[in-house]
């Protein structure tokens, strides 16, 4: 656990750089993490995913599975990989200011 300055704001993060207090998140922070993760500028497609993750998190207290993003969020898996190459859920949840999805056991 530690503190990190992202987009001019000091926030609490875990060892892997995920925000531990979601209330500290804002859109500027999201944009900065996206650059850090090699995603670049966030476009409409990215935001659709980020907003879906946040809505799900608010309702269920967990980050949804990739399959749920596809089925309930209406984003095809192919697109998810195009938006967030190299791990759509890991990257999008980090940008959304949510904890890394606990890998299913």
């Amino acid at each position: 656990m530690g503190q990190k300055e992202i987009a001019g704001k000091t926030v609490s993060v875990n060892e892997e750089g995920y925000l531990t207090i979601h209330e500290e998140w804002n859109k500027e922070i999201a944009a900065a993490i996206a650059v850090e993760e090699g995603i670049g500028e966030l476009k409409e497609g990215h935001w659709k995913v980020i907003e879906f993750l946040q809505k799900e998190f608010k309702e269920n207290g967990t980050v949804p599975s990739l399959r749920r993003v596809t089925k309930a969020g209406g984003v095809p898996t192919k697109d998810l990989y195009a938006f967030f190459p190299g791990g759509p859920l890991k990257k999008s949840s980090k940008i959304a200011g949510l904890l890394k999805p606990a890998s299913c056991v």
Partner: protein
Amino acid sequence: MKRIVILGAGTGGTMMANHLVKKINKKEWSITVIDQETKHYYQAGYIFIPFGMESKRTLTKQIKQFLPKGIGHMNIRVDLIKPEENKLVLSDGKELDYDILITATGCRIVPSEVEGMDGEGWMRDIFDFYTVEGATALAEKLKTWEGGNLVVHTAEMPIKCPVAPLEFTFLSDWFLTKNGKRSATKLIYVTPLSGAFTKEKTSEILGHLLENKNIEIVPDFAVEKIDPANRIMRSFDGIEIKYDLLVTIPTNMGDELYEKSGMGDELNFIPTDKHTLQSKKHENIFVIGDASDVPTSKAGSVAHAQGEVVTKNILRYIAGKDLLPDFDGHANCFIESGYGKGFLIDFNYDIPPAEGTFPVPGLGPFSLLKETRMNHLGKLSAKWIYWNIFLKGIKIPFITSKLTMKGKKF
């Protein structure tokens, strides 16, 4: 007379029947178990079939052998649940009312979820070992295996017994070495996870073991499709893996009954309170075993730990008392690592596997997170324990429903 219906006579359902028949007031309540099958398989033994160490015959018994006296047993399929009306629609068109429903229908593989998986290559050079048919066909295939790329693959999580793909890989290494085919075989372990296993420390230890055994690991692989004609598996981000034999764990899903009945999530698992094991939507429905969406392993040992909690909570529900949040996600898994050795891991929702001894703190005889001969013997003895103790709902000395911290090093 009120009725408890148990859907499914596998591990969880059989245990629940045996628990409840001892505890319920039989003047007021009847118990009915429904299953469309007549046979009960010891599923934890499937892993040994491809290597000729078990067979369909040695793993099969009759469902009715394990159901207690004094309950009803129907050998029929349920076509629909009407949870708002507390009714089941059976495949013969008749309806059955329930007051309390226990769903214990498990999960199954659905190869059609991945494009190309169940096409021309299925059972030719693509096999599963999660069904008795798949494991038996794979045993035949391995008998004539001369070498090439043997790819062990998991499509997506969650799967039943998340250690099974690793066990299969370790056992393949041992089996092929024994048969002189190992040097001609490239063993590749392909997983959607970021490492060998879902839990970090365990993943590290097992990851090293893969390395030591000269097994290549391809992590973060999300399969998009399989090209059976050219024997290539492709990921969503464009990575291609060539296989000569693909042993896959296809997508695992709950029964489609829940999709039809509007009760399942996107994988047809039933949204369930992870501590009380009551359905989140319907208060008179309880879920045991692989059928639920609770975030722990899908495994018999988990169903065993859940059995006591579900029993207690059904009795409390009947008495109008608050349910107890007593299930902690406890799972306990043997991991075969080949050459007559194995690991044992013990964990729950919050506490990852740690080193120590099991089940008696400080004594064992099993060692947690270590590779020992005794752990392998434990895995072998689990079959006898399953048929004779687990299914009957008998308490095993020292084995607690909740995880214990005693005798463990963190």
